[in-house]
């Protein structure tokens, strides 16, 4: 065991990988949330074609392993595109972000849908009975409540996306696990290195969980004065 050596040598390398892990996760979650919103609205629309497209997309993503999806995006798709555009290639990062976003999008769509369905029908009826349109009702009444119901599942999906970046080491994206693999390949410090890697994931995901607890507290539907009072009472 030589933690000191691993720390000195590998840490800069691993931090570099961690940076890419965090950035690709954030970008993919961002894109995935937008894809998810559209797919969710498609799946809940009255239009049969839109519903079918959304259904097939979710079915394919959920029904196949992400590793296979990554291989198809990184190796397969460029092969097809090269039939029209010579020398076409995705970088590992581009392919990685595409795969992660498509993946998160499918799951997030279902999370949003669950949140929307959890809002009692009476909320919509009350808004509509006042003369508000379907769109106004969604924006002012349904979606804010749906988002709140979705937070635990959303955070869960964010965590999964962060951890799933490690799968992208298989297409050569230089994220955390990929960097670690390169390092242990020459030094054989498997235990120390991968322990550090594990700790790094743990720290990032813990930070996310702290943030989500904070947001959940912020979104409690109770009067501000009371919230302050309860807070004071605890001290």
């Amino acid at each position: 065991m030589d933690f000191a050596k691993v720390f000195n040598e590998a840490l800069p390398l691993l931090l570099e990988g961690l940076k890419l892990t965090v950035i690709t996760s954030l970008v993919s979650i961002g894109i995935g949330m937008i894809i998810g919103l559209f797919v969710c609205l498609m799946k809940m629309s009255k239009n049969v074609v839109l519903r079918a497209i959304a259904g097939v997309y979710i079915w394919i993503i959920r029904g196949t392993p992400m590793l296979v999806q990554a291989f198809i995006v990184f190796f397969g798709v460029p092969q097809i595109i090269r039939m029209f555009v010579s020398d076409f290639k995705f970088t590992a990062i581009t392919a990685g972000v595409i795969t992660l976003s498509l993946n998160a999008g499918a799951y997030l769509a279902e999370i949003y849908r669950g949140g929307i369905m959890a809002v009692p029908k009476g909320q919509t009826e009350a808004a509509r009975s006042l003369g508000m349109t379907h769109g106004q009702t969604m924006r002012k009444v349904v979606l804010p409540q749906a988002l709140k119901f979705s937070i635990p599942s959303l955070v869960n999906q964010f965590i999964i996306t962060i951890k799933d970046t490690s799968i992208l080491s298989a297409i050569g994206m230089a994220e955390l696990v990929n960097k670690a693999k390169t390092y242990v390949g020459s030094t054989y410090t498997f235990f120390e290195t991968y322990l550090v890697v594990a700790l790094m994931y743990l720290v990032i995901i813990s930070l996310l969980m702290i943030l989500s607890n904070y947001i959940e507290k912020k979104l409690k539907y109770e009067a501000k004065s009371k919230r302050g009072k309860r807070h004071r009472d605890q001290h």
Partner: protein
Amino acid sequence: MTNINKDNKKVVVKDLHKYFDRNEVLTGIDAEIFEGEVVCVIGPSGSGKSTFLRCLNKLEDATSGTIIIDGFDITDKKVDINKVRENIGMVFQQFNLFHNMTVIKNIMVAPTTLKKMTADEAYAKGMELLGRVGLADKADSFPGELSGGQQQRVAIARALAMNPDIMLFDEPTSALDPEMVGEVLDVMKELAAEGMTMIVVTHEMGFAREVSDRVLFMADGVICEQGTPAEVFDNPQNDRTKDFLSKVL
């Protein structure tokens, strides 16, 4: 109540039928309700009272028949139902206050979103209405922090904020603890005394007898009998009415 304007029919329903799948819930309803009239709809569970009421603001689509509100035939697809709904307030059994908004925001959201009032006007109106229902001190509370009776009074204030000329009440006291029924009925009585056109589906026979100008008795999807409270409660003609009243009075 004496402020009924018989020249102004607020609601005209002709041969209204409503199916849920193959189940016929309303089997031909004809009704007219005049400006300023307070009409209570009574009858056994499953008689179609609530469905009838919900057809009047199109929360349920009529299967056939016509429903004319303020001169607009809401069964006509070309009529903008949202515009018609602005003039029909509705109060629900389960209150249905918006959980994500404070009491005052609940009242302000429709008038401001629909550009009926500026935020300042809606706030002033909201506070005035909260004063009327005795809840001005709860403006900044969330619905979850109020009792059922308080929530229902806010729901009435929310509906009134749009300045409706018809109010629909769908069993407004059925979900309340007994000691809170009175406070909600008191608000409704005041509203009736002010001349609001009201259609109230209720199991509160005392309220129906005291406040309504006319009582409709429904059973099996039709109006079996109607008349003044004295006529319906003291001298019912229809066997279904007699049977029902003998059980609830």
